[in-house]
């Protein structure tokens, strides 16, 4: 099973990466190398094996549903590449009605 260049472009769209042509070529090659490695896993019969998502079992961590102080808005927005401090929001390109 080998991935085509077009399939790699499709994955890049899902991953929101605007790959340049040479990057697409390189990644196609690399992903196919890795897929060849993954093929070894198919040797194993795992039909009745439960999956492990977390190696150490932990019970659901619950806490009292009480309000707690959070970071001040100014502190959170300080890292924004483009913000409107007066409105208290991050500026993004127009999303609706493009």
């Amino acid at each position, binding site marked *: 099973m080998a991935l085509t260049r077009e399939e790699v472009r499709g994955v890049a769209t899902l991953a929101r990466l605007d790959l340049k042509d040479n990057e697409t070529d390189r990644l196609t090659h690399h992903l196919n190398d890795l897929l060849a490695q993954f093929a070894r*896993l198919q040797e194993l019969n795992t039909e009745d094996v439960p*999956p*492990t998502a977390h190696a150490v079992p932990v019970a659901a961590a619950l806490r009292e549903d009480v309000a707690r102080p959070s970071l001040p808005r100014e502190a959170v927005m300080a890292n924004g*590449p483009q913000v409107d401090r007066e409105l208290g929001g991050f500026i993004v390109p127009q*999303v609706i009605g493009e």
Partner: protein
Amino acid sequence: MELYTLSARELADKIQAREVSAREVTDAFLACIERVDSDVRAFVTVTAQQARAAADAVDARLAAKEEVSSLAGVPIALKDNLCTTGVETTCSSKILRGFVPPYNATVVEKLSAAGAVSLGKATMDEFAMGSSTENSGLFTTRNPWDLTKVPGGSSGGSAAAVAAGEAPFALGSDTGGSIRQPAAFCGLVGVKPTYGRVSRYGLVAFASSLDQIGPLARTVEDAALLLSVIAGHDPGDSTSVPRSVPDYRAALTGDIKGLRVGIPKEYFAEGIATDVREAVTRAISVLEGLGASVGETSLPYTEYALPAYYIVAPAEASSNLARYDGVRYGHRTRNAQGHIDLFEKTRDEGFGDEVKQRIMIGTYALSAGYYDAFYLKAQQVRTLIKQDFDRCWENFDALITPTAPSAAFGIGEKTDDPLAMKLSDICTIPANMAGIPALSQCCGFTESGLPIGVQLMGPPFSEETLLRLAHAYEQATDWHTRRPSLDKK
């Protein structure tokens, strides 16, 4: 004796006995950074001013005869994926250049409460993806034992800083060997704790089910001291385990008589360099001479750990790294046409090659139609790997293996061959997949003078056993007393 050659424990004792001030200690390490870091390049950011202020605060408390904590005035280096209030945290990525966290990681808070003095932020492979720091989006760190070699990775800056005497110890993070492999390459003790032992709150996430923060130090005692400070339950990390934290130093009794140490044969197979195999075999004899009982064992699914890891870790990474979109922090493209273009261009410009590769493989493995074949399969294999270890714990208290297949390789030697680079983690990845604790320490040197690492692994929450074994070995050998010749400049 130069202050920067002392262990963290010796420094803590001298500061508390007021034989030396915290400020003198911090200044000694800052001077060492000044002297050697242009060669070693271990630090992304040196926080000299904050460090001096923190040291002065410790001195003021001591002068006022106030109680101080265990690490009062002891300097430390932090891997640059640990959030630090007011100090840039880059993950060695262009996409996080300029990111100044508004909060501290829990481990940073704990260190601060213990009186430790942060010297700055250490280089890493971008987002901790790599084994050499060559994937850093900023610059590559060099191995203090030989500046033409890599320090290992991803916590290469943390390891190089400690080996070069720029810090007495450091924090790293380990997802597939990122503490232990650089510890091996730089001749240090490195501990990956049991998954859940140390809070990950404020650690920039790579693969959330595998990541753990842990110490890099020159002695087992220093690693134990640091682990005692950072371990423990934290409501901020729902996977941290509510379990009391022992004083790990109390475990260093020197008595390992009767401890059963297994040698899994798969870790000594083809691909392990002869000098590594010989050094580890000698280390096994030393443990046997100290009274440990040694026997061969087998972990038959070992060879499947690497391919399973390269599904699980990138899958989790592709999800964790979805947050870098140029909206709330970090890099943002200057020429976007619409919001989708903003995301795509920002990410293409900000992420390096290795990070893109892993995002791509992870996205593919999680995408519709492939989930069962890849991600589910890898998680099932993960169960088999874990069961392999569980069977071993019926007969053994710990397992001993090489940490890495070879000593440090040359800068540029493996950059054109991503698969060869990934094989560097073949001995360390299984412990992350199984969530078990593992430790690397120095067990000798190659003919050309590069350190060799030996790894100990144990059942969940057996850090005390691993540290006890390592400490006994360290007391019986003198590898840990050697220093790279940078110091002599």
